[in-house]
């Protein structure tokens, strides 16, 4: 009979232990979710999908299994933290709005660094999430995948300062912010060139005017904010100087071969775009650049930033990108 009770004990103990695992986990989760970071090639984030409720703090205990990673949540005003191998980094997030947030790695951990992403689904039983507004390039019906190359380019880099000094009265229609958002610098140059009042100006003068109008549509703070975002997120591939020669550029360029298999694997990449390339940049509108940025470049390796940057941040980045084409600083 002792043996019988022993057998029953083994079964009951085993079953109780198995059934109690989810409950224990629930309790542990209230103490903090342990999240492991690994390079995207070896698994990325584990777990990669989290849930949270509005107003309830979400405790995360972050650790890395390989190299130093970073952690930040898109659309959230929370500074990024570093995650070091063998160490625990504690972070508490509080969400005020429901929605699907994207968290991502902020350290250039590998060429697939930008693939290290996960989501936090934040729910609020009372509030329904508002449907997202379509981005400008969609409203304008722009085809951001079409090839574009300006046939005319300035002889030297246009300068907003020189443009201002020309002391010309530009028609109001060209100075509006909506015009800026939806037109390319070449559009504006052609429009100004055809104005009879500017007949005396040289072609370069008109380019300087374009730079001046472009500059007046951005602010110093915006360009500064854009520069910071660029340095942290874009320079790894596009390079600090925007010339498309970041530290991962060569690896990305190497990924462009064997297009068929790589495309099917989602691994196809291209050499990063060179923002100092005038024909390319001057034939793109701010809406076009923002579209590329938020959607990402399909089959190029360009990540989609729509889930991570706020709208203001995307416009700030676009403003900064123009500094690779125009001299925006006001000379003393």
């Amino acid at each position, binding site marked *: 009979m002792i*043996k*019988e009770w022993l*057998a*029953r004990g083994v*079964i009951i103990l085993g*079953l109780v232990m198995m*059934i109690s695992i989810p409950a224990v986990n629930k309790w542990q989760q209230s103490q903090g979710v342990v*999240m492991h970071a690994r390079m995207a090639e070896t*698994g990325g984030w584990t*777990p990669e999908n989290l849930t949270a409720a509005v107003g309830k703090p979400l405790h995360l205990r972050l650790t890395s299994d390989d190299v130093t990673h970073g952690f930040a949540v898109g659309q959230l005003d929370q500074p990024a933290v570093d995650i070091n191998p063998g160490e625990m980094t504690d972070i508490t997030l509080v969400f005020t709005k429901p929605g699907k947030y994207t968290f991502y790695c902020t350290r250039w951990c590998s060429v697939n660094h930008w693939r290290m992403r996960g989501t936090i689904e934040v729910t609020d039983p009372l509030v329904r999430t508002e449907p997202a507004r379509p981005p400008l390039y969609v409203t304008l019906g722009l085809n951001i995948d079409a090839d574009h190359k300006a046939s005319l380019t300035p002889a030297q880099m246009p300068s907003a300062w020189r443009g201002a000094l020309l002391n010309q009265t530009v028609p109001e229609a060209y100075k509006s912010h909506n015009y800026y958002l939806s037109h390319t610098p070449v559009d504006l140059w052609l429009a100004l060139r055809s104005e009879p009042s500017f007949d005396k100006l040289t072609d370069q003068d008109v380019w300087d005017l374009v730079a001046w109008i472009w500059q007046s549509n951005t602010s110093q703070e915006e360009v500064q904010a854009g520069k910071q975002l660029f340095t942290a997120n874009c320079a790894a591939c596009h390079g600090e100087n925007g010339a498309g020669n970041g530290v991962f550029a060569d690896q990305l360029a190497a990924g462009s071969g064997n297009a068929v298999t790589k495309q099917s694997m989602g691994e196809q990449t291209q050499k990063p775009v060179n923002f100092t390339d005038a024909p390319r940049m001057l034939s793109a509108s701010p809406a076009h650049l923002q579209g590329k940025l938020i959607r990402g470049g399909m089959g190029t390796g360009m990540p989609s930033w729509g889930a991570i940057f706020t709208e203001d941040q995307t416009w700030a980045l676009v403003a900064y990108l123009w500094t690779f084409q125009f001299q925006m600083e006001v000379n003393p």
Partner: protein
Amino acid sequence: MTRLQDTLWVDEIAPGSKVGRSSKRYSIPSRVNLYRIPWLHALLESRWPQFLVRALTLIGFVFTITTALFGSRVGSHNFAIIMVWIAWWTTLKLGFIPFGGRSWCSICPIPLPGDWLQNGGILVKSERKRGLNLRWPKSLRGSWLQSSGFLLIGLFSAVTLTDPHVTGWVLLALFTLAIGMSLVFEHRAFCSYICPIGGFSGIYAKSAPVEVRVVDKEICAKHGDKSCYQACPWGLYPLAMKDSSACGLCMECLRACPKDNLALNLRPYGSDLGRPPTSSRLDESWLALIMLGSALAFSAVFTGPWGWLKSSAFEIGSQAWLAYAAGFLVLNVLFLPALFTLCVWSWKKISHNSSPLRRLIVSQAQGLLPLGLMAWIAFTISFAFPKLNLVLGVLNDPFGWGWHLLNAASSSNSLDVSGFSPYLQVALLLVGVFWSASVTRKLTGSDGTHNSFPNIPVLAFYLVYSIVMVWLLVG
């Protein structure tokens, strides 16, 4: 062929061995009685080793349900999906069934709680037995329900095999059903008449190399207690067992026999096959055909290159799925049975066989078993082998919660079997065809006619089937 128990020869007993038990020790040619190997005897006689394995599978089973319901919804990161449909399925198809017939049944966790409730105890039976102990309705006997259950699983398999929640609920439903049926009906009603795995394990057990059999019929005939029958959870009487399809290899009869007159035999493959049928029941023939049909269907859905087929199998309730379901059912319920009937019928005509067609179908369907078994093994190699690398990952982190039980990073390299698997699969199907053909040849002479005209239509059926299977698996 040599029938069991037909030829007996006396085995000298060593002096000093147990007296009072069977004084004559019989053995049968081409059989090795594993129960006479001392250490194996000790392992099987004690209930503890089997209990511990069963406890492990039961606890593991409940753990699997827990991971399915509470773990990651990503199938490849969920313990339940990988362990049930990849690891267990592979072990079942490549290990338990070909080497042990129904051996999985002897440690299957699903009927255990019901068994224990019926017995009123785990290791010892007590007086406090629970359940109504009703007899299973005669009209529902046979493997009809098992076949239908297997078809039902087949209809939803694309989702069941990939969605952890669905897997969890299916396992839980089977578990509850098994316990419930133990409380209402006597013996292993669930295992014998409902469990689809039990169904096909049973028919393939006929070809497997193990059996539990009586050693000396005379001893049984003289023994009035029938302790083996009393002990059998399946309600079988070993002396009356004609083949291995119903025996769950639980070893209770071996433990119960006071005369030590039962053997766990190692036997040649296919020993139960090729004998004239003892009944004209079509249920097992249909099950054998369903197994062939679903191996074809699953190979097409899971390992084939057709995306539209995969997605129509996935989108349950959609028009595409209804078309897939209709196709799957027509293949298994109408097409293959009709084709096989046609083959047997034309052979009957050619060879002027006077036996009733129904009886010939039942008899000839035995030949489908080796081919079916080999087809399933071949399918499993394509289906499960490339995913076996995921097993380590889910052992390390069963719920997908970021655990590190094994302290191992999940390897991203899948097992590349494409180099050898085509050869292996072709070889397996060839073995299946030849083995099936040899069963058919044995049957040809034994079907009530001395005309041993070769059964070309049925042989053609095997050949065409295996060619289609090779085309699906190897391309």
